[in-house]
């Protein structure tokens, strides 16, 4: 266990560096996100058709929400799980399995590293983002605190999902296409394209049965002060529940994956 911390920090730093080196890649991602925020702004402005408020939500608030939601779904996406299938395919995963650290902690370390770097870069890009969309501070100190807790839980949830998806590459090698679809599903049900309060009823029910709302919708509802008191606690409760469920699932999948590796001769 004494090797744990330094080894994980090392891995985290390695992946952080990789992200920073791919500045152009990041630039393209940023452009893509800005484009999406811009499109959403235009479409929503058109949809509001001049009304000041719809369902008690002003256009300005909505656009601020969408801007932040798009940033949120970006930096808490664990990119390392995109790299993993390639490592399986190329056989480099053998190295990972031999390292003194377990595979699971390694994946986590890598993800953390990348997320940290991406967050830094995103932070640096905030001025441009503010030009395209709009930014707002949290509704109150309490709202900010709740938001942070919710975001940390959300990150854990996304990590668990990402790890499970990554580990499926031990069973099938074709994961790239599915990843693209997952991205959309994740974004959509996280409320990054349409906030959940504007979903048609039946779709809202579906969204509330899925873990994705924890990514952006719930944390940002807390951020904007739309959920307070009992409602806020309920939201956090939902997040904790998903966190628990998905991590249990992730560990089960992980154990199966390791077993499969041993069966196949490593």
């Amino acid at each position: 266990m004494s090797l744990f911390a330094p080894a994980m920090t090392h891995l985290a730093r390695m992946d952080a560096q990789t992200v920073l080196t791919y500045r152009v890649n990041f630039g393209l991602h940023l452009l893509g996100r800005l484009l999406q925020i811009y499109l959403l702004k235009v479409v929503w402005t058109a949809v509001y058709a001049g009304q000041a408020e719809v369902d008690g939500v002003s256009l300005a608030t909505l656009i601020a929400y969408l801007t932040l939601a798009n940033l949120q779904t970006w930096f808490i996406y664990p990119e390392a799980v995109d790299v993993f299938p390639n490592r399986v395919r190329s056989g480099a995963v053998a190295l990972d399995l031999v390292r003194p650290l377990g595979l699971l902690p390694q994946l986590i370390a890598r993800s953390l590293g990348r997320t940290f770097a991406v967050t830094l870069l995103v932070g640096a890009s905030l001025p441009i983002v503010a030009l395209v969309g709009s930014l707002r501070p949290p509704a109150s100190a309490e709202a900010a605190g709740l938001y942070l807790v919710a975001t940390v839980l959300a990150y854990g949830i996304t990590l668990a999902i990402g790890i499970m998806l990554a580990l499926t590459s031990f069973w099938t090698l074709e994961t790239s296409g599915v990843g693209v679809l997952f991205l959309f599903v994740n974004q959509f049900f996280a409320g990054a394209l349409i906030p959940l309060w504007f979903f048609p009823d039946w779709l809202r029910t579906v969204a509330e049965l899925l873990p994705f709302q924890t990514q952006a919708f719930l944390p940002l509802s807390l951020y904007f002060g739309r959920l307070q008191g009992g409602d806020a606690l309920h939201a956090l409760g939902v997040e904790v529940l998903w966190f628990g469920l998905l991590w249990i699932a992730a560990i089960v999948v992980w154990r199966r994956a390791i077993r499969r590796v041993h069966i196949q001769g490593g």
Partner: protein
Amino acid sequence: MRTLRIVLALVAASLRAQLQYRMNFVLWMVIGMVYQLTGFFFLWALLARFRAVGGWTLEEIAFLYGLRLLAHALTVVVFGGLQNVDWTVHEGDFDRHLVRPLAPLVIVLTWFRPSSLGDLLGGIALFAAATRLAPVDSSPGAIVYIALAILGGMFIEGGFRLVFAALAFRLQRTNALLGFADGIFSNFGNLPLRIFGGAIEVLLTFVLPVAFVAYIPASVVLGHASELAVQPPVAYLAPLVGGLVFGAAWLLWRHELPLYQSSGH
């Protein structure tokens, strides 16, 4: 003609080669289709709550979206092979296509992409459904116009693919640029461009002819023609834009092909 039969034989060969990877083939077909429809899913969910976007109802949006998807699907089916030029040239693997008794461009077009079938299915499905639901002008003239417009849209987007493929002989790595242009067509081409306001709409009409792919033709047959940034006569001639764009792209290809350096060997 004999050339046509040769072309079909080559396409069939490309298809057979890809069918070897059956799982992959089907998967990419499905993914392609679903991915194309996600954009529409967003609009559909949105318009379940709101009546219209920029004065366009859900049915009209569906028609616009379906029209563009169909044109796009045809582009990928017919011109999909152009996406491989970038990589082939970079690897220096284009040589062998230049010694065949068939125009290199034609050879490139026989390279089949499995995702194109998925796109086509999605496009046809959405377009068919939308024509039934939307208040579309269904006079014979309008039908001919729309059919030509779909072809025109195919030639516009195909023309841009040809441009980037042509530039690959000079620059080698152009697929990133293609992806960017494709992104613009995909993201803006499905929406009623008037919601973007003057400057952008002008940009996407006269600089990058995104509007001509679907927005202008759809406007014409849905009775929105008066809102357009272009005058009616130009709107009716929308299909011709495809011919112009593609013609220019073809000239560029002919100009750039002699610059091929066959490096990487």
